[in-house]
């Protein structure tokens, strides 16, 4: 780092506070950093955290009503437990096989065989997929397995234990196939994205001008509070004072500010976004847990930064170097 222009250090130490953490849901605060970091984390979580998904399908028999490509596409979208995905190889980088998914390092094989024998419509679901690797299986199978382990009795046909529907078969129809699941990232195809939703918002900073607020009658206060479509403000039933009920409910819709102006009280409330703190909401498809998703995202992000830094060490930043005002 011998650039003279890069004098002051901008290094900051972001803090994370986890508010809520469940298997497939997380809510956390990210502070002391800026939007570029927050957005990079979001983008990596959606598109670059690897998972395993069915990628190659070899259909032996398909006499169902859906065509082969449709079934293959549906299979691909089934989330598979991919806790081990970080350790797996991309099949394009795999040296144990020639990328056709025949080795254990880069691929997992699935089999599915279903044939409707009775008059009842047979629903072929993700539960019918048989994996050759116990670590990788459809997420609802894994959940059922864990529930069985923990002793709580379950009926495979109730609730969400039915699995993800692939196709329905009528009497005499048959579906038999071999599928190979491979590691991939959401950038290549959405089926590899472990994130259902990743979003963040700037933490709002709401300041009510108490003096001005006191000039309002209770009815005015009430109508002002109700002007926000979300429940950001509330009126204290005892003191009849307006207080911020939940700042994070605020959607930056400016409705309350417009309302205040309409009421002839501009500056009743001042709302600013805190530029350096973000509230993240993460939901996963179940392929990996929300915790894994966040941690893996940080790992991937670090790897990417490493890649940039390594290039920098070689002094091979090329045009970018010149752009940054280098020698």
């Amino acid at each position: 780092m011998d650039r003279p222009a890069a004098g002051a250090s901008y290094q900051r130490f972001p803090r994370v506070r986890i508010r809520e953490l469940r298997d497939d849901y997380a809510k956390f605060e990210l502070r002391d950093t800026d939007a570029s970091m927050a957005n990079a984390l979001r983008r990596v979580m959606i598109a670059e955290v690897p998972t395993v998904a069915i990628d190659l399908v070899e259909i032996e028999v398909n006499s169902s009503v859906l065509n082969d490509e449709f079934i293959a596409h549906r299979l691909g979208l089934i989330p598979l437990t991919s806790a081990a995905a970080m350790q797996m190889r991309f099949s394009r980088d795999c040296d144990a096989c020639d990328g056709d998914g025949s080795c254990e390092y880069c691929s997992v094989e699935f089999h599915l065989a279903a044939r409707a024998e009775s008059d009842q419509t047979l629903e072929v679901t993700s539960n019918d997929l048989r994996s050759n690797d116990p670590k990788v299986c459809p997420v609802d199978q894994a959940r059922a397995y864990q529930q069985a382990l923990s002793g709580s009795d379950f009926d495979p046909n109730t609730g969400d234990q039915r699995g993800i529907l692939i196709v329905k078969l009528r009497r005499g129809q048959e579906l038999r196939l071999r599928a190979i699941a491979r590691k991939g990232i959401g950038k290549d195809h959405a089926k590899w994205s472990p994130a259902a939703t990743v979003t963040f918002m700037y933490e709002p900073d709401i300041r009510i001008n108490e003096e001005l607020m006191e000039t309002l009658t209770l009815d005015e206060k009430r109508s002002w509070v109700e002007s926000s479509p979300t429940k950001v403000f509330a009126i204290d039933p005892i003191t009849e004072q307006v207080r911020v009920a939940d700042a994070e409910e605020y959607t930056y819709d400016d409705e309350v500010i417009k309302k205040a102006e309409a009421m002839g009280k501009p500056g009743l409330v001042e709302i600013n976004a805190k530029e350096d703190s973000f509230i993240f909401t993460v939901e996963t498809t179940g392929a990996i847990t929300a915790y894994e998703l966040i941690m893996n995202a940080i790992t991937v992000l670090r790897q990417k930064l490493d890649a940039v830094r390594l290039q920098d060490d070689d002094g091979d930043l090329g045009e970018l170097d010149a752009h940054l005002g280098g020698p």
Partner: protein
Amino acid sequence: MEKAKESQSPAAVKEGDYLALRELFRPHVESFDYFLDKGLNEMLESIRPMEIRDPNSNNTLKVTLEKGHVLPPMRDARSSVPLYPQECRQARITYHGEFKVDVCFEFNEQGAHVRHTFNFGHLPIMLMSKLCHLRGADPHKLVFHGEEATEMGGYFICGGMERLIRILILQKRNYPMGLVRGSFLKRGAGYTDKAVVIRCVQSDQSSVTVKLYYLQNGSARLGFWLGGREFLLPVGIVLKALIDTSDREIFTSLMCCYSDKYGRGKGVVSTQLISERAEIILDEVRNLSLLTRTQCLVHIGQYFRSVMEGFEKHDYEAVAEAVLKDYIFVHLENNHDKFNLLIFMLQKLYALVDQTASPDNADSLQYQEALLPGHLITVFLKDRLQDWLRKSKRLILEEAAKSKGFDLSNVLEVRKFLTKYTTSVGRAIESMIKVGKVNSQSGLDLPQRDGMTIHAERLNFHRYISHFRSVHRGAAFAKMRTTSVRKLLPESWGFLCPVHTPDGEPCGLLNHMASSCRISSFYNSEGALKSCEDIKKSLSAELVRVGMNPMLPKIERTGPPEVLHVHLDGCILGTIASANIEKAVNYLRRLKLAHTVPEDLEVGYVPLSLSGAYPGLYLFTNPARFVRPVRNLLTPSDGKQSIELIGPFEQAFMEIRCPDGGDGGRTKSFPATHEEIHPTAILSVVANLTPWSDHNQSPRNMYQCQMAKQTMGFCGQALKFRTDVKAFHLQTPQTPIVRTATYSKYCMDEFPSGTNAIVAVLSYTGYDMEDAMILNKSAVDRGMFRGHIYQTECIDLSTKNREKVPEIFARSALSRDTSTAIDSDGLPRLGEVVMCSMLKEVHPNEQYYSVYNSLTGAVRPVKLKGTEPAFIDYVAVNGANSKGGLQKANIRLRRVRNPIIGDKFSSRHGQKGVCSQLWPDIDMPFSANTGMRPDLIINPHAFPSRMTIAMLLESMAAKAGALHGKFINATPFANSMSIKEEDKDPCEPKSIVEEMGSMLASYGFNYHGTEFLYSGVFGNEMEYAIFIGPVYYQRLRHMVSDKFQVRTTGRIDQITRQPIGGRKHGGGIRFGEMERDALLAHGSSYLLHDRLHSCSDYHIADVCSFCGSLLTATVIKSDAQKKAKHEMLGLPTVRPPKNFVCQACKTSKGMETVAMPYVFRYLAAELAAMNIKLELRLSNKSEWPASQES
């Protein structure tokens, strides 16, 4: 089995749902039903028996057609296995039943009647008609037979193609229309441009148009077409020939509506000129010295005997009687009625000339009716049968003249000649449906000869329905330069949709019936045949009760304005005093509601007016009229009873109000008598599906009607059994959240056509300019807008063999190759991918079936055409008529069509756009609260100029509906209905925005449907709120994969060596003169040279600089020794320099090479062939300065 029973009960419920859908197809099916039920026999009866007179023995034989039989479609003539439509589609055969007619022979008038049944081949049977095996089948049975559960029928299957007979507009039958047309002047000297025209239709639906022309001298001529020629008769002769009458009687009849005391008041149609005119008419007859009826008949007969077929031997009077019967007012049987009608027409003609009555507009729906499939077939079949009789007669007479021993009484002998052409009758009908051409000598009084049928495309359901609801004005009008026919006239209100017409060439000519519009038929609402006689009797009885004076022969008459004539289907029944007429009309309408008279009776009451339409009470009971339901306000409204069917003729004179509770600006003296049921009744089915179309700019709704018919959706549930040449299929369609009432009424959920996409309206990347739109790549990955194209190829080897060598499907016995898609029977395996043959690399999978030549034993594998791989979806073998081995097979190919850049999409509001990018999900803007990323981004500039407000409403409403978990009703004009209930609930009326906005706000969203989004690229909040919400988007069938055309090198034309055209052959797109001019103007000469020369027919020619000839260069064999030497020395063996010699100059000294387009050389050769020498003067700029050149 229990399961089957279980599922039957919901199916039964479903069937009721499809009734609304079936109703749309009823005009087609009912008209064909009538043909089968009664029309056929009626038509056969009306065919004049053929009489053959043996020239040798003077014996006669009378051949009468008696009774027709059409049998349901059978697979085989002998066995009684029913043939189902699905089999016909698969085997590419016709869904037809045998057609037989009983023929009666009568020898020498009094001889015994001998009956024989003749087989006239096969008649195509309309699906769901009375002879169709699927008639009345429940959805279960339909599905079992490979049809849609909703199958509505109404079409024919000819050679596997589904074709329907187009409904055409015809002139209203049996109504004399006053017309002013320039073309009437061309009839001859003395003719004017005014005439009264009546299209008379007989009970067998054949029609004869009679025109009554006005002459400058005040007389009139009666014209009709016979044998390709128009015959013009003085009207006086016809009047006298019709009945035994006197000049006096004619005179008073004509004068009846004139009186000195009238002056020029309201409803006066006649002027004093009429007496002079009547005298002229009578003088004309007198001048020909025709005084009695017989004289007139003889006069007519003399003229017509030569042209009337089959009357060569009859006396003049009989000929004249036949002319009057067959050509003049054929809808009437009684000559007195004809006389009365002719008098009426004369009066109307004079009123038209004197401008006391206005001319009728032939383009207005008021004077039009529909040509229905069953009627067309009846008419055409009659013509073909008459043609058959004519031909057979000629054959028999020839035979009789030739051989002496021929005996007419020998029925078997005669039968031999009669059967010669019988099958041509059935074939003619089939080919008429197949190609749409009506080949007949007489023209059958039809507006056009071809284009009668169209292919019922099942691209999607909207298009399919529209085919059956379309009404065409006639092919002749498409070429007309005037636009008056295309005008949207107020008369078509409620009958033809003002929105649903294509723009461009057929605009206004191809209309669609409004959703509630029906066409009257021979069947009443209970499905029973109506009896014309009974109707006429009961109607005249009722009319007499309300004060009609029946029209009796020989009575002193009066006319308007004192009394009005009462017409029933073109027959003058009597007169009603104009004071009582309103009462009578109201009485008739009450009878209509009570069903004592036909419910679709048209009470066309034209009131007295000051030079308006010619007054009268015109009643119509005939079929093929447009009718629509409205609510009658005069009768006590007890629900169902008050719905009355009205026609376009009466509608023009009725007071119908909008059901919004207002009076529509009417005064108390003219109260509304009727009320629309719902304002959406004016829209067609497709136009009715646009949500809130009343909030859109009107052309946008028209565009949507076009685009709805081009969407790629579910073309049918029975796709598996379909053999369409091309079918589009959307993999994951959805039902729209925002929908109109029509959507559920016509079960559109069975055939969905789009996806609820989350649409953000913002200008985001620049890739959404000019109606481009950005799709979210992840959404596409997850299956949005994915689709397939199914193409069925029917391979029939039996028709292909040219050298009479049978070919069959087979694979080479030696081949053990399993890598190809071809299975052991020579046909492809299901699910196999077939690569295209255009790719450079050879792929084993590019062949998909192989053919074995049974003579040579050669096996010929066939490659797949086109540029993209296909999946084998389905293979069907047709072994019905192959003797040895497989010869006929259907192979259905499936091609994947995932959305790519360049594919076309549209919302339901005429907002189409092309996908410009598949944008990564992470780069799309996202909502901070919900994390939602849009599926689709469109540019805000799409709205201001197009004003598709309903699309914005749809977005808001769909968002609210999605949050609330219910469908939103977006029926247009709903507020003009709800105001009526205002009296009960005053706070009810609310705008859509208010309703949806408060709903959105209650779920914590912005009232106006906007959201603050974050940039997906930078992570910062965007400055302005973005309008985002779900909008139902349709994928259109125009896809780049079917259209892109690119070429660098490839096939060239043999003669000019220029690239060939045509996408199929890998040709280029023409870079024409205008494109050349553009490049010239830019001065981009290098590009110009590249396009027009290097990439085209670049050629290096050898030119002799001495003689300047381009063609005389000949090659001398290059020196073999030199070549060998080169090789020995290891010198680079470039191209050995060719030696050219000018053939004319006998030297190679002057040879130069010149680069030129090859066509230039071709031009030189062509010119040389015409003995013109083309000489080039070669120059080198350095040697020959430009200034020296002249």
